[in-house]
């Protein structure tokens, strides 16, 4: 009786979990599926027939390709800058609490809780009120760095919460100057956290629309291009490029997982060899 109930309960849980996953992955599935569609007319929204044409010629829409290239450059640059600054903030906040560290904590959370429309428009006002930079590539990078820094700082800080700071003392004790301690002890140990934060920051940057929209000027990023184009036509190349980005990120994840397993396997091998 009891075991039957618990079995039904477990089955129900599995069904719900399955439905949840379907809910999450259905849109992604359709993006990939429709990259193989051969649409009639300008809108790739009704399934017609299977084709590989889109994948064989993914860059046929030159404006779309150009926009993707712009987006990749913006996101790469913004991610590098925000990862450096965000990680340094996280290190400073984790190492010890100092005067003003609680204020910085508050300021870090602020960009996450402020509506993007407010961030975007106020930043645009700021850029308008000065004459040093025109709207374009630079302003978009600055805008992206602004919100990425918070995500990076919070992610890195969460990842290094358990960091054993006596390791830095030990390095200093062994004669390592502060830079050497950072280079050979602190940095290698926090690197996984920093990389995770960078991936997150990159993902947030490459698909940002609202803040970019306010600050891009005549620069057209991938999301802006799709938004603009969708009013006249939705070519299947959008799906192809989106799928490529998707597969690229999945590949990154898989490489990470496989490398992790490999180093585990190498360790296990060495262990057994030593015995």
């Amino acid at each position, binding site marked *: 009786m009891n075991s039957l109930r618990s079995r039904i309960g477990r089955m129900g849980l599995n069904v719900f979990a399955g439905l949840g996953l379907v809910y999450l992955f259905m849109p992604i599935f359709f993006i990939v599926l429709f990259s193989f569609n051969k649409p009639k007319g300008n809108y790739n929204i009704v399934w017609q027939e299977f084709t590989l044409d889109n994948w064989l010629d993914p860059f046929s829409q030159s404006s779309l390709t150009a926009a993707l290239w712009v987006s990749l450059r913006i996101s790469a640059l913004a991610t590098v800058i925000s990862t450096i600054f965000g990680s340094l903030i996280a290190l400073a906040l984790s190492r010890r609490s100092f005067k003003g560290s609680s204020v910085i904590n508050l300021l870090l959370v602020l960009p996450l809780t402020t509506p993007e429309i407010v961030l975007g428009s106020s930043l645009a006002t700021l850029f308008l009120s000065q004459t040093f930079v025109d709207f374009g590539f630079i302003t978009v990078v600055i805008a992206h760095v602004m919100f990425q820094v918070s995500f990076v700082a919070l992610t890195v800080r969460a990842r290094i919460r358990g960091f054993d700071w006596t390791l830095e*003392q*030990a*390095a*200093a*004790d*062994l004669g390592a100057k502060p830079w050497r301690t950072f280079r050979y*002890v602190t940095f290698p*140990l926090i690197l996984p956290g920093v990389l995770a934060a960078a991936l997150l920051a990159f993902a947030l940057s490459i698909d940002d629309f609202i803040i970019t929209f306010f600050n891009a000027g005549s620069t057209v990023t991938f999301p802006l291009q799709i938004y603009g184009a969708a009013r006249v036509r939705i070519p299947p190349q959008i799906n192809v490029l989106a799928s490529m980005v998707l597969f690229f990120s999945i590949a990154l994840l898989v490489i990470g997982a496989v490398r992790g397993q490999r180093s585990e396997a190498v*360790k296990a091998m060495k262990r057994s060899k030593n015995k």
Partner: protein
Amino acid sequence: MTDEKRSVIELDHVRKQYGDFVAVHDANFSIANGEFFAMLGPSGCGKTTTLKMIAGFEQPTSGRVLLDGDDVSAVPPYRRNVNTVFQQYALFPHMTVFDNVAFGPRSAKKLDEARIKKDVMEMLEVVRLDKFAHRKPSQLSGGQQQRVALARALVNFPSALLLDEPLAALDLKLREAMQIELKRIQREVGISFVFVTHDQGEAITMSDRIAVMSEGQVEQIGTPEQIYRSPASLFVAGFIGSANLLPATVESNSGQQLHVRTTGGALLNVPQGDATFSVGDRVCVMLRPERLQPAQTITTAGSGVEGTLTDLVYQGATARLIVRQHDDTELSALVDATSLPHWVRTGETMCLVWPNDCPYVLAGWPERAGATTTNVDHVEAAL
């Protein structure tokens, strides 16, 4: 060695204060070359803070720290020629044992890689871990990690090695083995070891000299025997080994001998010791449990007390007797269990007697009269 007595570390009236809290009051002592020196005290006594000031992780509020005669009070840790073995070892988890040990020499940049390799492997041999050079710390046992930490510190040939509760993380059996191992390694390398511990047994078995600390004060510095036989304060008497502390008042003073009356009413003859007391002074008579003997009567006047045996605990070769006096203070005696007289029975009245040189007089009354609760027998066994 001609410079055997040269002092490696000198603390010159060192004081450390955090806000209003004084962690170390006035540490003023020096540690000789090749010495095994312990800083002993309960947690919060300032021993670790003192160690950190020697290592350079803390700066003294006032006073000076000297290493090899040079004032290093303001010198950062990476420019001090001392190395630390941390309580949790602080091994670099992403490096192999070899790279951990080589970290110091590589930071110094004085030697080429071939020489470093030779030094590191030699040091790993000293700690008997040469076969584990290419493992990661996580693949080693606690005791092995400890020895990596030792090798990593010693390979730099420091003026002194600082050890912060190095054995606290090990289980009892391993701890005893490591005590012997540490002594062996210290003899082999001939470097001063400064060793922080809260474990009096550890301090007594391993050290040449001990500094007993309490609440930021250095209470006494001396050899284990000096500290055990003639403690400088009630705190030291109670902290090192177990002791019976009898509060008493001086009734007369014959120069060599004091006649004191305990609060229990017994009149005792005790040697004067180093301090001088006058009639009416409140003193404390310390009696070590292993020097007390059971007796039916007090044969030498003033060298024994009477009471009721409340507890008899066999501990293998020895037995512990708890004798309650009329005023309810309890005395503890550690006696030979094999020759225990038949009249020693729980509930019976009996006496505890002691040789003339057993009692030791301290100034002041203890907070708690009678046997101290630290019944650490291996301390008595070690001496």
